[in-house]
């Protein structure tokens, strides 16, 4: 036994894809019984590092040791067998199998006549969940499990495989506050049981809350490793970006003009009810609330990709035909949707084609779309938004999340909208690009654009919005001015059953 050896030790690990060095010098030492945060901008090399640990990629150079033993995995199965488990943001499970079957997939306990012994499987799963302190039915099908529950199932599976090292890759990105709390409880339990946990997140408050040690990476290299107690969030941001972020939320003051978007009594049975609000030219209205409160659904209905049962949407004095995005666009509406890769972009298409996607009709002369006109528009807008790509015909799949989001923004700004709806505009985007997106939104509003911003990150809403609408269970629960909107007030309005209490526990 080598109790002194760290569970995981990486030193000077490098990996290149063709000419691109994704990881130059990855160094990470994780002790057993600790939760180790790994932070850095997108493209800093965290994912590559995780994939090397998880056996997906093979390193070009450097040292990887598990419990003091050098390892070189040739595939994920080997890594798994050695006790490494990677919990993905959105785990893939087999929807038609039960929770227990998913956990024991490929190593089902066999009873007499080599039949699968469901009783053993069920009891084992129940025991696992008891150890983790969660309440889940082993017999329910995996289909319809929330992302949070799927992660728990993955963790249970990892524990049953005797994983010593659990890597959680941005697990909280799509979780609600309650689910995050449960995940943290599970993670602390694992730590106390002696497992080593690597926790990757963009949310520094979570790092401070949960982790013992934090390693910062930048440009594929190790920057620093400290005890969490010894560093401030400001220190971490500075190290991640490599420069001081003057202001993550640069708010340009503007005077709101006339009402451009008016939503009256919008109703969709079972989703949202009696939603009414205005957005004026030059103001940013934040739509805050818990995940699942119905904010995105409201935005989708306003834009016309979803239908609604009652109410109306008026843009610049014109009532929009329900369920007709084309009409909404013609009236000056733009929607940067929540799911960038599925709804925001055609990821298989080039930057140029994506940027021109909504403006094609306008660019066409006598029905013919000239490649020159398309390239000019794309060059113009990707230049203005500082999109980083090898060429205009580079495929969007190859780009980082931040650059993809800029392409989506470019696509909509190219249409010259009056109202811009942005749904989680900076989700999964690195800190540097985040500040760029904020500056852009702020500038656009100052120039007279009406912005409706949905965000689950409270600091973002409070930092950017002139007015905050809080959505709770499909209804507008509160309307707050910039001065009134404090984290406590917003959270109290957003949490069901918390009104009048001292905030949610």
């Amino acid at each position: 036994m080598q109790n002194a050896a760290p569970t995981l030790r990486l030193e000077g690990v490098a990996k290149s894809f063709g000419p691109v060095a994704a990881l130059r010098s990855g160094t990470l030492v994780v002790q057993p019984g600790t939760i180790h945060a790994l932070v850095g901008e997108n493209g800093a090399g965290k994912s590559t590092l995780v994939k090397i640990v998880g056996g997906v990629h093979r390193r070009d150079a450097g040292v990887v040791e598990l419990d003091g033993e050098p390892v070189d995995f040739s595939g994920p199965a080997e890594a798994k067998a050695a006790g490494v488990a990677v919990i993905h943001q959105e785990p893939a499970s087999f929807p038609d199998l039960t929770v227990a079957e998913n956990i024991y997939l490929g190593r089902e306990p066999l009873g007499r006549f080599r039949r699968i012994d469901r009783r053993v499987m069920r009891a084992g799963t129940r025991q696992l969940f008891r150890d983790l302190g969660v309440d889940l039915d082993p017999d329910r099908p995996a289909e319809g499990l929330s992302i949070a529950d799927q992660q728990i199932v993955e963790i249970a599976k990892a524990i049953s495989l005797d994983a010593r090292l659990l890597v959680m890759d941005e697990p909280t990105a799509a979780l609600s506050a309650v689910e995050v709390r449960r995940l943290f409880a599970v993670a602390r339990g694992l730590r106390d049981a002696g497992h080593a946990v690597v926790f990757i997140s963009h949310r520094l408050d979570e790092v401070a809350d949960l982790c013992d040690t934090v390693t910062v990476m930048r440009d594929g290299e190790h920057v620093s490793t400290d005890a969490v107690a010894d560093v401030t969030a400001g220190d971490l941001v500075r190290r991640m970006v490599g420069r001081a972020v003057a202001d993550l939320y640069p708010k340009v003051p503007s005077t709101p003009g006339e009402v451009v978007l008016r939503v009256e009594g919008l109703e969709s049975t079972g989703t949202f009810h009696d939603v009414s609000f205005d957005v004026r030219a030059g103001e940013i209205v934040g739509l805050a609330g818990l995940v699942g409160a119905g904010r995105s659904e409201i935005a989708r209905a306003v834009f016309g990709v979803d239908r609604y049962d009652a109410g109306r949407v008026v843009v610049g004095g014109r009532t929009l035909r329900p369920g007709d995005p084309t009409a909404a666009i013609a009236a000056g509406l733009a929607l940067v949707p929540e799911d960038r890769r599925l709804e925001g972009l055609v990821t298989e298409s080039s930057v140029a084609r994506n940027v021109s996607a909504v403006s094609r009709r306008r660019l066409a002369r006598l029905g013919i779309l000239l490649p020159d006109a398309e390239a000019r528009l794309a060059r113009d807008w990707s230049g203005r938004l500082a999109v980083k790509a090898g060429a205009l015909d580079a495929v969007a799949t190859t780009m980082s999340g931040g650059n993809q989001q800029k392409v989506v923004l470019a696509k909509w700004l190219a249409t010259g909208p009056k109202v811009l709806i942005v749904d989680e505009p900076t989700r999964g985007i690195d800190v540097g690009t985040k500040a760029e997106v904020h500056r852009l939104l702020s500038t656009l509003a100052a120039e007279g654009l009406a912005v409706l911003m949905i965000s689950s990150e409270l600091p973002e809403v409070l930092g950017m919005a002139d007015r905050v609408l809080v959505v709770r269970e499909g209804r507008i629960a509160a309307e707050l001015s910039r001065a009134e909107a404090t984290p406590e007030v917003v959270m109290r309005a957003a949490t069901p059953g918390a009104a009048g209490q001292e905030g949610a526990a």
Partner: protein
Amino acid sequence: MRTHARPWWQRALLTREMLTVLILVAAWIIASATVQGFDGPLTITYLVLDVAPVLLIALPMTLIIATGEIDLSVASVVGLSSVTFGLLHQAGADLWLALPASVLLGAVCGALNGALVAYGGLPSLAVTIGSLALYRGLAVGLLGTTAVTDFPESWTDGATEKLGESPWPAITLGLVLLIAVFAVLLHATPFGRNVLDIGRSSEAARFSGVDVKRTLLILFVLSGAVSALAGVYYTLRYGSARGDNATGLELQVVAAVLLGGVSIFGGRGAIHGVVAGVLLIGVLGSALRLEGVTVNVINIVIGTALVVSVVAPRIAGGLRVRRRSSAGHGS
């Protein structure tokens, strides 16, 4: 920022479509050199006359498959249009009236497919297998086992007439015109961009304001109309309107489109590749027939070519991935 990552000649030549064009050229050269009688002028004449229906139908089919859908009812529309054309002639209608009427009926057939797929939300594979049976059943039911054959010679000759002294049939002009129209539609109009976007991600297309349903409906209507036009040509070319005309032709069309490099999963495809795919099947067919090879063997050859053309990009992609990861090994 640069507009293109690669120089123009690479973008033009190193494509899946150019591979089909290259194979077509190679097949032509080899056939001319080794097959007796292949380099005669009649080869061109019959090649064009024979491939015309497949070529016509392959054009709208390219756009439909590029959206990730399929239309398997095309050959039945050929049959139904052939019967309609024949019956109208028998009833004494002017052929100049029977022609647009048949095409219109084809458009209606396509509209029914399109409405069920786009607005009914049903899978096109299932819908058009159903309408394949339905339209064929109507065609055979209307005319029974008989045929209408007494078309005026001015029309039947027109279908096979040559351009002056050249080996090229007069219909070549019409074919070239339609190819150009569809090439422009797919590659140089907002509509064509929408078609490819739908094939790549119909959800993203919808969020960009593309009317996905209307686009699909239009494509199926086009497919029906063009198939009906092919049906009229087929009738005049063989001088016979029958309910079972062009049975099974849909598979040749789909084969040609896939050979031409259109992705069966949608989002990828080009008209020049499809034209080459159609001609390749035509050239293989006529060369093998001249060699005295039976139809069964010809089908085996074409079938193998199709499977290879669908599988080859997969294998090439797999090899590329493997090479990349093994290049990563060398530490």
